[in-house]
């Protein structure tokens, strides 16, 4: 018996194409950030997180979380850190950050992308330190270095949130022209 292959609805295909395009962009930024000189242990500007924010606004929490997980897995494959401590730290930071951003976007009334990004950046850095302390170094003195890196996270989180807000507004505006 020959089963007819049904073509998926156009809207579904378009949604998948946008998600894949965002994933490719996020992986590109993940690899680019890995090549940047380090400002501190496990500190990155969080540019790839900007794409998670856009996915959250356009496609919802599930897509944003999946995009973060796939971005870390595929990105680690490209930069050669798959299954190393760097991969574990990155996955923990990215996942916790995405979950905090989703929760704040849904639960905090009046919050904008800037606030969501700020909370995500702080959660990312804190989760990385907790992962390193609990899985690898086992030394609470590690947390002495956390406050200055959290201050840097505030700055990068704010900038990324403003950028995401600008991009989201601009694309929405252009799509209605």
């Amino acid at each position: 018996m020959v089963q007819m292959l049904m073509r998926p609805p156009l809207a579904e295909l378009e949604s998948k194409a946008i998600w894949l395009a965002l994933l490719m962009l996020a992986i590109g930024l993940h690899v680019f950030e890995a090549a940047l000189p380090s400002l501190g242990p496990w500190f990155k500007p969080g540019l790839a997180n900007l794409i998670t924010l856009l996915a959250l606004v356009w496609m919802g929490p599930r897509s944003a979380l999946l995009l973060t997980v796939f971005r870390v897995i595929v990105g680690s494959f490209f930069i050669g850190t798959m299954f190393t401590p760097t991969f574990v730290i990155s996955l923990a930071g990215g996942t916790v950050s995405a979950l905090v951003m989703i929760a704040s976007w849904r639960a905090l009334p009046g919050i904008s992308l800037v606030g969501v990004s700020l909370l995500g950046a702080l959660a990312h850095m804190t989760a990385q330190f907790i992962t390193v302390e609990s899985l690898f170094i086992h030394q609470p003195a590690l947390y002495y270095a956390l406050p200055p890196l959290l201050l840097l996270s505030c700055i990068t989180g704010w900038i990324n949130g403003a950028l995401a807000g600008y991009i989201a507004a601009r694309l929405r505006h252009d799509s209605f022209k």
Partner: protein
Amino acid sequence: MDRGLLLLALLTIGLTWIVIQQSIAAGPPVAEIYHGDTMLASYRLPESGQPPIYFEAEGDLGLSEIIMDADGVRMAASPCSSQRCVLSGTHHHAGDLIACVPNKILIIIRGSRDDRYDAVVE
């Protein structure tokens, strides 16, 4: 809402940082070297003119070579693949740390050179 969040975050982080600095900046500068939760060694950082101190820390992957001199403390060699700990350079401020996660070696600085004198009188 966003500005309130930023202000709250900055205040909390700033206060925590001040409290941590107060607790670890007292006394002369000392480098503590850990493997996991075990302290391997603790050295007072040499003053200008004093000879450097070399220490080899046995980690999960092998030996990490640590040098302490008048400029501070640095990881001279490490068996890890990323070499981020080596590339992070020399550190000398209270609270600075060098972490080699793959080799599970942590170096943290307590104390400050500014604390060498009880009082300065002109």
